[in-house]
């Protein structure tokens, strides 16, 4: 028996109350384990997870001076943390325990072949022993985290998130690019389905933002740069010059009386004008004047061209020398709430928005209704009004396939309001599908029908104008009666959809946030992490993540706030031990690794690579990029994986076939567990190697595995869209291509190396794939030892080129 002086390993084999012992011969496994190098003792127990089982380990560690432990029992997904705690209690590093999954991945799926199952259990234990032998006694690491939050965007999403966090005692920087907060909600008339007045419910919240001592409100400001990571984001913000001193201005409006310039009022969607010196709107926060530098004569020409405002301002607030101001601060978490832009209807030329005066957007109609209610009607929309639904939504012709989710209801709302103010109005809504899914929406829709609003199921094909009367002619099919409608309307309202706001692009790029196919920012998981992003400590709130109404926006904003609190309230947060590290003595600073990390966690300092542990998420895809094997991953080191693979294959006998199933922790490993739980059987000629991501298995490890006796390798990974490492699929494909090339060169069938992306419900797919590869390998026949040996010759040269020989 070989002796290993470095490790004193204890092995514990669990019966799992019969779950394991009814199939696997536990005694035999215990006996086998006891003979392995470094194993000091080998025991069994009916329930290792029970208090008694746990105490057994603690006592043995003390008594026998164990420094590594293997527990052969259920899945580590299930009891992994229990045994880590046990080791901590016993005063060891929690990271020197290894579980051999002999329940989900042995006893259960191989219940019908007990002898083979026992053999496989020994292989699994043997592999675990090898892996634990080279495990590092890492310490639990933590990072400090404070209570500062950057909220970008001051629409209702940003407002809600800031108030929640401010009230909870966190320190908020709320950055809004416009001169006032409020976003789109400030422009709306009333809100469906309750018809509360939008300004009335929003303005108190805006005022709260201003008075909340924990919120630093930075309006008319833009985020220029963000660097760093959770707990340490360094932020640079530029405040644009307002040319009016906010501390002095009382917004009396005297200046507006004398300003000679009129420009379209953006808040009013260009339906009215304001002067070059203006307040954003009646209930703006902050409610102070400012000067539009593009419009002001003084700022455009020379400083003495006008100056009317200076003369009348009693507070001496006007300052034409105002300059942009740079502000820098550090925050711990970030919430992105930069909202949406409405679809630009000029892109949909058939609807004639640019050509016809009486074709307007729904947002313009919102303002017309508000203005009319305030007693300053802009113009009467007339008697017959038509709404065109899905403008810039659900339309491949403009490249937007998604539903904007709010337009059906806001059209219903606008129609109801118009009908309510003048019941004689004749209102039609042209739709394809009427989506009234929310709470109270169906009832609201019915109410509109009760009021006499007519809903026509047909999408408008074309809009024309009667040049004499300026009436608008719509063409559509009433698909329910198959009649073509060609009728005149006084006003046609385009129910424009939502798209990601253009101003978000810069932010997304700066923060390296991912986008989903619809162009909105992508959440980390569509079900369970709907407000997290691919970056730790950065969250999404509101329409920046996808079209939604105000209730959903507010809910999401509060969710984002609570997710941020979850991190910040810990004061320090544990960092996963699975991070990349550098064997400095092997690194020559060649920089090949820099681009391999999608999170930019690797940099070069003093001519050696350095990993930023706060940024690294531990996928391990960088490891393959280093020709000198200087990069490595804690918990899954090259040495550990190599030894694990070696021992896993040690039990293979003459004439037998063995494949390795490299299973990513998030999807494939869990999938294999589910297959076991469902007692779906598959061949015992396979053995699972657990990795954080399939991209951790480097081409060198793959080749080594073939050399050590593998007849096939099967890599399972999450689908890109559900993976915590969306880039990994690509990396794996690249790695595989290289290895297949070498296999081919040595006359080994490249199909022995396979890759499948799984979702965790593909139980049968897993079984078929594993059986499929084993059958394939069996039929392809044994690989000769000479061929195996040749695979690892000149491997650096073959993978990286001449200069790395």
């Amino acid at each position, binding site marked *: 028996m070989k002796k290993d002086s470095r490790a004193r390993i204890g092995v514990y084999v669990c019966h799992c109350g019969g779950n394991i012992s009814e199939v696997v011969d536990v005694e035999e496994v215990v006996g086998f384990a006891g003979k392995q190098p470094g194993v000091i003792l080998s025991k069994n127990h009916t329930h290792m997870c029970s208090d008694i089982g746990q105490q057994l380990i603690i006592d043995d560690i003390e008594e026998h001076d164990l420094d590594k432990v293997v527990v052969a029992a259920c899945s580590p997904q299930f009891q992994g943390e229990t045994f880590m705690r046990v080791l901590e209690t016993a005063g060891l590093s929690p990271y020197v325990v290894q579980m051999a999954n002999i329940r989900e991945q042995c006893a259960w799926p191989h219940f019908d072949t007990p002898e083979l199952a026992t053999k496989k259990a020994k292989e699994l234990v043997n592999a675990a022993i090898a892996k634990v032998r080279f495990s590092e006694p890492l310490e639990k690491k933590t990072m400090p985290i404070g209570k500062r939050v950057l909220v970008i965007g001051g629409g209702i999403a940003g407002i809600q998130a800031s108030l929640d966090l401010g009230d909870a005692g966190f320190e908020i920087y709320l950055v809004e690019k416009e001169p006032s907060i409020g976003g789109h909600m400030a422009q709306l008339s009333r809100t469906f389905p309750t018809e509360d007045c939008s300004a009335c419910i929003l303005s108190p919240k805006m005022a709260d933002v201003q008075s909340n001592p924990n919120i630093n409100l930075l309006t008319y400001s833009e985020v220029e740069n963000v660097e760093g990571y959770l707990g340490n984001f360094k932020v640079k913000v530029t405040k644009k010059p307002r040319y009016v001193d906010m501390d002095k201005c009382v917004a009396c409006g005297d200046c507006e009386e004398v300003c000679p310039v009129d420009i379209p009022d953006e808040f009013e969607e260009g339906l009215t004008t304001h002067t070059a010196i203006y307040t954003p709107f009646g209930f703006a926060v902050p409610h102070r004047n400012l000067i539009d530098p593009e419009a002001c004569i003084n700022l455009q020409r020379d400083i003495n061209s006008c100056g009317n405002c200076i003369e009348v301002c009693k507070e001496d607030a006007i300052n034409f020398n105002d300059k942009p101001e740079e502000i820098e601060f550090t925050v711990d978490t970030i919430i992105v709430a930069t909202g949406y832009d409405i679809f630009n209807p000029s892109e949909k*030329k*058939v609807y004639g928005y640019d050509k016809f005066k009486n074709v307007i957007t729904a947002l313009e109609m919102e303002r017309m209704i508000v203005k009319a209610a305030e007693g300053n009607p802009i113009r009467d929309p007339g008697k017959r009004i038509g709404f065109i639904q899905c403008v810039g939504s659900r339309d491949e012709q403009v490249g937007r396939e998604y539903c904007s989710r709010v337009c059906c209801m806001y059209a219903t709302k606008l129609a109801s309001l118009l009908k309510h103010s003048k019941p004689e109005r004749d209102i039609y809504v042209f739709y394809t599908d009427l989506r009234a899914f929310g709470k109270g929406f169906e009832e609201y829709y019915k109410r509109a029908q009760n009021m006499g609003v007519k809903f026509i199921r047909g999408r408008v094909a074309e809009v024309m104008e009667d*040049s004499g009367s300026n009436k608008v002619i719509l063409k559509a099919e009433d698909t329910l009666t198959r009649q073509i409608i060609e009728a005149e309307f006084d006003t046609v309202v385009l129910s424009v959809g939502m798209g990601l706001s253009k101003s978000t692009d810069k932010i997304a790029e700066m923060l390296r946030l991912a986008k989903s196919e619809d162009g909105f920012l992508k959440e980390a998981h569509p079900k369970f992490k709907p407000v997290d992003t691919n970056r730790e400590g950065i969250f999404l709130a509101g329409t920046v993540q996808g079209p939604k109404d105000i209730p959903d926006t507010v809910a999401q904003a509060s969710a984002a706030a609570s997710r941020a609190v979850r991190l910040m309230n810990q004061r320090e947060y544990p960092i996963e031990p699975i991070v990349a590290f550098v064997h400095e003595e092997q690194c020559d600073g060649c920089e090949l690794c820099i681009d391999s990390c999608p999170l930019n966690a690797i940099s070069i300092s003093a001519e050696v690579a350095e990993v930023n542990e706060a940024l690294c998420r531990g996928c391990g895809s960088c490891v393959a990029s280093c020709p000198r094997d200087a990069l490595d991953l804690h918990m899954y080191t090259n040495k550990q994986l190599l030894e694990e693979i070696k021992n896993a294959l040690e039990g293979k006998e003459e004439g037998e076939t063995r494949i390795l199933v490299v299973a990513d922790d998030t999807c494939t490993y869990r999938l294999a567990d589910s297959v076991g739980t469902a007692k779906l059987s598959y061949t015992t000629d396979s053995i699972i190697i657990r990795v954080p991501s399939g991209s951790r298995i480097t081409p060198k490890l793959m080749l080594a595995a073939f050399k050590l006796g593998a007849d096939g390798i099967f890599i399972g990974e999450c689908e890109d869209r559900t993976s915590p490492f969306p880039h990994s699929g690509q990396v794996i494909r690249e790695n595989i291509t290289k290895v297949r090339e070498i296999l081919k060169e040595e006359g080994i069938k490249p199909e022995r190396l396979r890759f499948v992306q799984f979702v965790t419900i593909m139980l049968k797919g897993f079984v078929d794939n594993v059986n499929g590869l084993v059958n394939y390998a069996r039929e392809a026949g044994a690989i000769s030892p000479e061929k195996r040996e040749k695979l690892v010759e000149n491997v650096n040269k073959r993978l990286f080129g001449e200069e790395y020989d």
Partner: protein
Amino acid sequence: MKVSYYPGCTLKTKARNFETSALAVAEKLGIELIELSRWNCCGTVFSLTDDDLIHHVAPIRNLIRVQEMNKNGLVENDHRLVTLCSMCYNTLKRANIRVKEKPDDLKKINDFMYLEEDYKGNVEVIHFLELIKDIGFEKIKENVTNPFKGLKIAPYYGCMLLRPKEVGIDDPEEPVIQEELIFALGAEVIDNPYKKVCCGSYQTIRDKQVVSNLAYDILTHAQNAGAEAISLSCPLCAFNLDSRQKEIKEKHSDFTRIPVFYFTQLMAIGFGLNEDYYGFDLNYVNPEPLLKEKNLIGRNNAK
């Protein structure tokens, strides 16, 4: 500049006036349209069923001729093929796109025409209007000696210049290329939504009433918007909108006939070219009275 040019059947017969005026106008602009040698009918319509490759053989053979033109030095390393007829343009261009997108189809078609050299997929089918746009409307303006002052012209596009999108020479819903040309010629542009409505196309041989109903809508909409003449680029549209005015008049006695021009005829007039190039004998509605009234012909100003 020498460019290969594809006339198509109708331009040699019923639409000779389109060709004559176009060749003259091109020459004035310094473009030599070199007729494709050994061209054959393009098939007039692009075959829309997925499995029907045989009908793409004819258009592709014409594209092979462009390769030959280059080889024989008739044009100098210029793989553009200029068309005038909108239908030929559409059929050739779409067939070209199909074989470029589906190399398997190209291979089959090449194999089928084993006596020809292979089509390599490097020809670019363009419409004469695109060539004009490339040259620039400024250049057009410079050549105008006989500006259409006060004449109100409605451009008509029909289908084949605009649709489907991948073939269209302009925005399918808001085209402007003819507008810019007519404006450059000094005429007043009359816009109306019917400019992109189909004239009924080949339905004209099956049911002339259906087609003349459509033509009536298209023409009266233009007239109501103030048009005194129509400009277009397709011999089939020309037939349906011009010649079918006979049927329109039979049904609607109050209908006023309106002259229909090929855009190249308008250019020839505007450039003050010899009246022999106008070819009004082939127009159904004689445009001469209108042109005389506007003092655009008969002033002996032809050069």
